[in-house]
Structure formats: C-alpha cells, structure tokens
C-alpha cells in the first residue's frame, strides 16, 4: 500500500525534520559562540574576524540556508504543537510525571514557550547587530566596528537583562532539545544514549553560559569610546 502522506508530513517524518533542523541550529550556535569568544581578544581581533566573515561573498547564501533552518524548525514545531494539542481533548483532572526512567523536565514541558521566546529574541538580536537600530560605526581598517556596536548595545542594563533571560531560555530549550534531537533522528542505542543525554545538557550550559559571560563582560568591562 502506498503511504497516504509525504515523508515529512507523518508524525515520524515531522520529528525527523524538527530533529534535523534542531541539530543544525545547535551546530550553528556552537560555531557562533566560538566566533564570539574572539571579543575577549580585543577590538582589532574581533573586527578583523567580523570583517573576514562579512566580506565573504558566500555569506548571503549561508544566511539564507540558516534562515531556512529556522523557518522549517519554527513552522514544523508550531504545527506539531497545535496538532498534538488536539490529541487529548479532555484533560486529566490530575496528572503527574511517572518518575522512574522519565526524561520529562521543566525544559521539555516548555519547549514551545522557550521556542517562541527565542523567535522574539531573534528579531531583537538581528535588529541590534545586523542593523544596529540604524546606527553603524566604521572601523578604520575596514568594515564595521562591531566591537563598539556590541559594547554600546550592552551598555544598556535593560538589554543585558533581556539577553541574560534569553540565554537562560535557550539553555532550557537545549537542555531537552540537544539530546532529544538525536532520539528524533533515530539514534538511540544504549551505549550512545548514555553519552548523548549528559552531552546535550553540557551543550545547553555551555551555550547559555558562554553568551551570558560575553554580555556581562561587555557590560562591566567593555571599553567604550
């Protein structure tokens, strides 16, 4: 019998797409944070790094690919959430986690909320750094002075607060998501899972912690001209 639906519209195919785009986004975040660490080497190093990236002619293509991962991830997760909501029309009067071997956590129960928060965060984030709310600084040696852009952005305590909260939210999303994605892609052998589960949590802490340290550094120690 021919399958009634396309591969990615079934419940399993949906999981595969969410997991795949999830993993890709995590890999992107790891690269992103590694790159941002260059900020600790000072303005010259950071701006050179940024200029090298921005002057690469392939950058628009890379951005487009990245955008498509976000779009697919958001589209699939939101639709999946909505259709899962219909699978239990009458709620339990009393429901609790079974404990035992469960992987249910606060993080896993709030994926849609952490995800939607991240979506809002992304809009602010791109506005602040891609566009700088209209204010751009020149770096004499070429390109933009993104170091200054970052320091100016994080001079504002409201911005620092918003970033810290958002990074805790990303940490929560990945606390469940980073390891969950492997399960969604069909990678669950006991020997791997023993590594994947704690590694996912480590990635969550690393990503959230890394970005928070950068925001705090920029706020308290950033050199502003």
């Amino acid at each position, binding site marked *: 019998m021919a399958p009634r639906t396309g591969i990615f519209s079934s419940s399993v195919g949906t999981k595969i797409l969410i997991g795949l785009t999830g993993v890709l986004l995590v890999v992107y975040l790891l690269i992103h944070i590694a790159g941002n660490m260059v900020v600790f080497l000072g303005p010259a190093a950071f701006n050179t790094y940024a200029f090298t990236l921005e002057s690469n002619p392939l950058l628009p293509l890379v951005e487009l690919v990245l955008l498509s991962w976000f779009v697919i991830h958001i589209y699939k997760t939101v639709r999946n959430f909505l259709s899962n909501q219909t699978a239990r029309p009458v709620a339990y009067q009393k429901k609790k986690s*079974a404990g035992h071997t469960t992987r249910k956590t606060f993080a896993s129960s709030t994926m849609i909320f952490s995800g939607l928060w991240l979506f809002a965060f992304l809009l602010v984030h791109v506005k602040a750094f891609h566009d700088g709310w209209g204010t751009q600084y020149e770096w004499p040696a070429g390109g933009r002075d993104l170091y200054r852009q970052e320091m100016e952005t994080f001079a504002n305590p409201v911005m620092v607060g918003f970033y810290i909260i958002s990074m805790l939210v990303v940490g929560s999303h990945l606390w469940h998501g980073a390891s969950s994605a492997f399960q969604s892609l069909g990678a669950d052998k006991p020997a791997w899972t023993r590594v994947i589960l704690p590694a996912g949590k480590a990635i969550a802490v690393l990503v959230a912690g890394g970005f928070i340290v950068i925001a705090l550094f920029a706020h308290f120690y950033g050199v502003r001209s």
Partner: protein
Amino acid sequence: MRLNLKIWRQAGPTAPGRLEDYTADSVSPDMSFLEMLDVVNEGLIVKGKDAIAFDSDCREGICGTCSLVIDGVAHGPDRGTTVCQLHMRRFKDGETVTIEPWRAKAFPVVKDLVVDRSAFDRIIAAGGFVSINAGGAQDANNILIPKDVCDAAMDSAACIGCGACVAACKNASAHLFMSAKISHLSLLPQGQQERYTRVTAMIDQADSEGFGSCSNEGECEAVCPKEIPISNIARMTREYVMARLSK
C-alpha cells in the same frame, strides 16, 4: 485501611463526566487495586446504585485490559506494574486517591473508566502481523538469530497493548506501542518480507486515528508495565526512513 476515592464517572461516550467521591472501608493491604474497586462496587450494587465500570480480564498482568490512571500516573505508582498487579499496601490509611480513565482523542470513553482501544487494533490490522506462510516447523538451528537480536525482539514482543504509553504521553502518542510491534517483527526473519510496508502503514494508521507525535520525554517508558524502552521508537524512525527511501 480506609481510603477516600475520587473516581471519574461518565454515563456514556457523549455524556459529560466528573469526579465523584467514594470511600473504601475495611481495605486489606493484601488486596489488589481492582479487588478494592470490586468491594466498592459490591457496596454500590447492594444500595441499588450504578456500579463503577472499569476494564480487567486476566488480573495477572499479561492481557493489557486493565487501564486506570491513579493519582495522575497510568497504572499507578509501581514501576513495571499493571494496575491489576498493584496492591493496596502501596497506599496509606486515610489517603485520597484519584482514579481516571486513559484520556486520548483516539481512546474515547465508553463509560466511567472504560475506554475504547480499538484504534490499537486498527493499527495492528494495518500491518502489525506476518501474512507469509512460514511453512512447517523446521530444525530450529536452520535459521540462526544472534542472542542479542532475539532478546531485543522478545523484549518488544512483551508489549501487552494496554495503551498506558498513550495515556501517559502529553501528546497522546502511540509511538511506543507501534515501535514495540514494529521492532518485534522487523528484528526477526519472519517479519522481513513486509518490513517496510508494515512500518509506513502502521504510522499512517496511527496518524489518522488522531494520536499525537513524540516529544522524547519518555513518560511512556516510565509507565509501561513491560518496561519497553523508547529506543524502540528510534528503531521505528530508522525503519521508517529505510522504508521511504527504498521505494
């Protein structure tokens, strides 16, 4: 022992339901949970009231008929235990216990605590079987199956189809149930011929029954009376990918 019970009463599939209060007096700690309900029902019948409808059959943990959510956990607090094998010594004198049916769109309530699980039957009918003629019994050593593969197939075959996985899942997903059946058959030689049509047909059927998708929380595994692990769900995903790529 004396227990306060809050039990879901619902006259029929479309009637509104609600929790009603009952007391279970002189409960012995050696009773099973279902025997405790039997005693409550005897009291109701004597008073000319409608007995509480609930499902059970074997009462020895092998048929998968019993199905109660006790204090928010499918099959109650004991790990790897059906509710018919749950005993009253697990509860304290004076405790309040809430009892509800499995809740899922695909498992409509028939009456009180009884739900219609024929959606599972339809999933099995869609592909959860072997229709080839395997012929007469031959020497067991003719087809060698590695011990670990055999064990994995047997562990999945332990699924009794009770539906606790669906009841526990926040998405009311049938993935653990399906994956147990798919693993069981796809690991063994008899299941090979229909391996790929089976997995797509069963998933199609489950999706059209209105079960949800899987969020990898593993609540299903934690309530499964046969402790079937969610690694089966990952195997089902691999089988599904192979099936879709192979045609």
